[in-house]
């Protein structure tokens, strides 16, 4: 695989160099969406790629993170930035509570349990209108950091600011995930991915590690949800919806669930694809479904591992 330093270098170059090729400011917006998705998908790489557990409900945590940025400033007067951190802690705590019983399940049972969790979160967000203003969504206050930068002489447009902010957040997230990969915990996670029973026999606390991976990935998803809410200045319950969870899992698997670099490419492709497909209007969904199927059939290990194998000319 690609080493840690090379991965970080590639990601940093992509973040810094891409704007030179942007024909219009609209591309900053796409870029920042890619980084936000990339952040959430990096979390899923830890859960799916490292630990080998499945989740079809991670958008639920994005919902918690996103709505924290809307509700905590409005009701408790917290700064939106602090609210995002509180949201991440809340998501981590909920993941810890829910994860303990859920992570004993395997395969499809884990899939339906996480799916159920995600749907419950989106349902609460849509139905508790007294708090969340219901399915139509709610406004999110401005982060205020852009104005501070303006004071010190850095005058960025709104989409430029969010491009750089999400880009930095994503690279930091990738750095943490890459460090985890080579840490004792990361090695133990990969061991339990290979064989849970073998991992247990060599003395790895399987339950605790799975829970750790689940909580970490929930925090990633929550922060991604907060970033999304803050840059859109608006959030709806759809952010926690089933299709959003699926979108992220698809990005992770499409890129190659085992690697952070793969997560980025998966996020980049599936974030840009719908923008490209809008040209085809009513045929958009047909093409999206087709791309999902074809990618998984012909590149079942994901894009990056398949491409790397092709370059190296090895069979496995």
């Amino acid at each position, binding site marked *: 695989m690609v080493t840690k330093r090379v991965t970080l270098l590639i990601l940093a170059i992509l973040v810094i160099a891409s704007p030179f090729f942007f024909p219009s400011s609209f591309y900053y917006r796409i870029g920042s969406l890619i980084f936000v998705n990339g952040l959430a998908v990096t979390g899923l790489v830890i859960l799916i790629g490292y630990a080998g557990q*499945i989740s079809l409900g991670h958008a639920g945590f994005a919902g918690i993170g996103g709505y924290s940025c809307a509700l905590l400033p409005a009701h408790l007067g917290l700064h939106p930035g602090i609210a995002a951190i509180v949201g991440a802690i809340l998501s981590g705590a909920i993941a810890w509570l829910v994860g303990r019983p859920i992570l004993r399940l395997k395969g499809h049972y884990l899939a*339906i349990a996480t799916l159920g969790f995600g749907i419950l979160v989106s349902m609460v967000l849509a139905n508790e209108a007294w708090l969340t203003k219901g399915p139509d969504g709610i406004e999110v206050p401005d982060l205020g950091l852009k104005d501070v930068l303006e004071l010190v002489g850095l005058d960025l447009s709104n989409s430029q600011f969010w491009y750089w902010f999400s880009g930095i957040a994503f690279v930091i997230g990738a750095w943490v995930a890459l460090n985890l990969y080579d840490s004792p915990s990361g090695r133990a996670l990969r061991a339990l991915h290979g*064989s849970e029973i073998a991992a247990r026999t060599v003395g790895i606390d399987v339950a605790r590690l799975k829970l750790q991976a689940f909580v970490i990935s929930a925090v990633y998803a929550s922060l991604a949800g907060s970033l999304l809410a803050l840059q859109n200045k608006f959030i709806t319950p759809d952010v926690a919806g089933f299709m959003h969870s699926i979108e992220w899992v698809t990005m992770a698997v499409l890129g190659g669930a085992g690697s952070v670099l793969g997560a980025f490419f998966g996020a980049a492709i599936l974030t840009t694809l719908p923008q490209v497909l809008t040209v085809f209007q009513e045929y958009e*969904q047909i093409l999206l*479904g087709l791309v*999902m199927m074809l990618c*998984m059939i012909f590149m079942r290990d994901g894009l990056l591992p398949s491409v790397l194998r092709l370059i190296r000319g090895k069979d496995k």
Partner: protein
Amino acid sequence: MAELMQFVLSGLTVGAVYALVALGFTIIYNASDVVNFAQGEFVMLGGMITVFANMAGLPIPLAALTAIVVTAVAGVALNKLAIEPARGAPVVSLIIITIGASIFMRGLAQVVFDKQLHRFPAFTGDTPIMIMGATILPQALWVLFGALVVFAGLWAFFTRTLTGKAVLATSNNRLAAQLVGINTNWVMTMSFALSAGIGALAGVLVTPITNTSYDVGIALALKGFAAAMLGGMGNPIGALVGGLLLGLIEALTAGYISSVYKDAAAFVVILLVLFFMPRGIFGKSSTDRV
């Protein structure tokens, strides 16, 4: 009392549809270990094709038959074009393939048909029948009757026919089944056709009550999946009981607690059941081979 009876009747009607979808999940899961998230789209196709074949001039029974056959062919195509080429892929990849297939079918239905709500007349009129102070639509009886017939038919198929036993053998151990001369590819094809056909039948039966449109599939797939897991994946009796139970829970929640949270009830119950019975109500405990 009449109120409770009313909730039970409507719960059983909805539950019968969930049970049919869950049976479809079970058949495909047994034959191929794949959880087919496109199962809900079969229900949608069943309803939509009947509507449009009927508008094109076919009488309802013939239109329904067309819908079931066309959907069964779609199921076989799904197996041949998307599932078989990906054999041996990880669970997540297979889930994404079937979700991709469901998005594809939904998109296709939106282009070929339209985005409107549709229905066709109930088979035997719309005059409600009174049972113990509660009312039930004649069409709801058709739904219940249909679910029972399908279940009895499947039971006979799996226990009384050689082909059915071949399917069971394949689900137990694919390699061993091949060794005794069972054509497992054909078993897969048949399972997908059967599962899609049952889904389409559910669509035909329920459309006069609930209406149909191109996007009804995903919710049904989630509920059917939940019902199958509730009963214990891979177990036809579990699918039937899980489906009916899910329908009852939803109806009682809607009636006595909160109608906006009726969909939530299903998932709360599933989480609780899985906490205490990690393999569903009828699931057998299994041991892992190391």
